[in-house]
């Protein structure tokens, strides 16, 4: 097993590097200085770290106020509370108002494993996809996390970034550019396309290797920007390969897979391909993150099974 990393470290390093030369960058958190990995930022820029306490609705509103004054607020909190508790603020104050708040969902998905569904953030993609004008970025590793932060500062706009805590290996190839609204094909393939996001990208690559050994050519698409959605990439997957598998550490009701299926279902009869959606289907039982990923079939082995089933239907 290759080395793996907590994306929060890369997030904080990149944020500090940019903030050193850009006074517009501020951070807002909800008593989450440690869990958002903002200790270093606080020590360097104490006035620019605004800790509102355990008050997520206030936190997102404060971010909107800072943005209205021309600053670039990175609003950092455990993802379930950032999205769930303050969803109306995200809707009205950030997305609808089009204020450039960077919402940083720390420890998303099932990163808080045994702490249970109250602390899991698997609904975030579904909730936030319904908000027009809000970018949703799910970096798959350290490099993509860094690029997501740089994009947010280079072109501030309402954005939600999942900042992963569950350790993942590096998957980003050299020369990779995280462009707004684009999926990236990180492995070419001709039989089946695996569209994966976040923690599932490395597992998708493992699945592709296994499929190759079975004589199946799998394309791996890294879906970092969930919104805006790369419709063209999905259409290419449907026209250039015979089946699609999606994989995400998120609820299947309204997440990445649902977005992909929505595009494919609206293609002409001759262009549609079978789609298999892998994700979270219910409130999780007790278990570690790795246990829960396996519980919900979010493994390389199950991606292989899903790919073969989808191809069999093609």
């Amino acid at each position, binding site marked *: 097993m290759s080395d793996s990393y907590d994306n929060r470290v890369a997030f904080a390093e990149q944020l500090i590097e940019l903030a050193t030369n850009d006074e517009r960058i*501020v951070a*807002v958190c909800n008593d989450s200085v440690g869990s958002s990995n903002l200790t270093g930022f606080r020590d360097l820029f104490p*006035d*620019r770290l*605004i800790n*509102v*306490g355990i*008050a997520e*609705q*206030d*936190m*997102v*509103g*404060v*971010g*909107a*106020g*800072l*943005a*209205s*004054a*021309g*600053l670039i*607020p990175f609003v950092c909190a455990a993802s379930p509370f950032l999205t769930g508790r303050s969803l*109306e*603020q995200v809707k*009205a*104050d950030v997305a*609808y*108002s*089009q*204020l450039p708040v960077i919402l940083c969902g720390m420890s998303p998905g099932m990163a808080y494993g045994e702490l249970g569904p109250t602390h899991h953030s698997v609904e975030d993609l579904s909730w936030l996809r319904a908000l027009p004008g809000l970018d949703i970025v799910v970096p798959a590793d350290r490099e993509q996390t860094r690029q997501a932060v740089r994009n947010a500062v280079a072109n501030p706009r309402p954005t939600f970034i999942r900042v992963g805590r569950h350790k993942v290996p590096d998957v980003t190839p050299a020369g990779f550019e995280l462009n707004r609204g684009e999926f990236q094909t990180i492995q070419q393939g001709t039989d089946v396309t695996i569209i994966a996001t976040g923690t599932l990208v490395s597992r998708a690559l493992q699945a592709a290797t296994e499929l190759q050994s079975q004589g199946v050519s799998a394309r791996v698409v890294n879906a970092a920007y969930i919104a805006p959605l790369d419709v063209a990439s999905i259409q290419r997957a449907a026209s250039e390969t015979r089946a699609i598998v999606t994989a995400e550490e998120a609820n299947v009701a309204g997440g990445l897979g649902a977005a992909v299926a929505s595009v494919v279902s609206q293609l002409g009869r001759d262009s549609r391909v079978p789609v298999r959606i892998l994700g979270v289907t219910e409130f999780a039982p007790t278990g570690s993150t790795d246990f829960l990923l396996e519980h919900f079939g979010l493994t390389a082995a199950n991606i292989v099974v899903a790919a073969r089933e989808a191809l069999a239907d093609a």
Partner: protein
Amino acid sequence: MTHTLAADGDQIESWRALRQTLDAADIESKDALLAAQASQTRRNVIGMISHAQQGHIGGDFSVTDILTTLFAAVLTIDPADPHWEGRDTFILSKGHCAAALYSTLAASGFFSSSELLTFMDPLSALNGHPNRNKVPGVETNTGPLGHGLPIGVGAAIAAKLKKNGARTYVVLGDGEMQEGSNWEALMSASHHKLDNLTIVVDRNRLQQGARTEDTNGLDPLDDKLAAFGWEVREIDGHDYGQLLAAFEPSISGRPVAVIANTRKGKGVSFIEDRVEWHHKVPSAEQVTLALEELA
């Protein structure tokens, strides 16, 4: 495509002239000037709500004197450059009173008052709740209650960081003080010693369905705000002299909470202090009667 609103240069000049006159005037003259403008706003609101056959007339009228005083005499703003960096931030948290806000913004020249009668028309910029991307002078899209104050806290913190002396004013309905998010923000504002932040609670004592004190009582609101660390000023929200005094900067180093005691529907006898006029629409006959009272 939504119609876009442009600044009204002539009206901006009138607004600037009024500001200069007010700055130099004695209190009786200020009263007369502000009362005239407030009456115009209430007449506009009657016209807008009659046109749209929708709106929130009671709250529009209770907040009119507050809005008039702030925009005519207090806020440091430039209607010709709504995003001017050094501006004061004004947020109408009780966004359902958009008609009064729109009329006040038009009186300041942010856009032409000829636009007011597009209120709630299809594709009008003048939605039932204000939209910052469509209406110059609007800082954030309000409507759901309990949103304006946290944003105001952020704007006030930004002014502190930028050391530009800008002030932030947030007008809240009294009913919306039942929203928990406001109390989160009240705590953080005093914790961060935001003496550049003033809130105004439009204390008309009525909410949509009943009196506040019969619904989820707010009193003693002054003690509650003081206990949360605010400098509290309780005034008659229809008295311009008291409003002007209440908008003076903090003297305590703490954020300022103005409890403006008002009458919902203020200015029209048959609308005043009646719960059903939260969002009732006047008949043609009532429009005539109301305009006579507001003449």
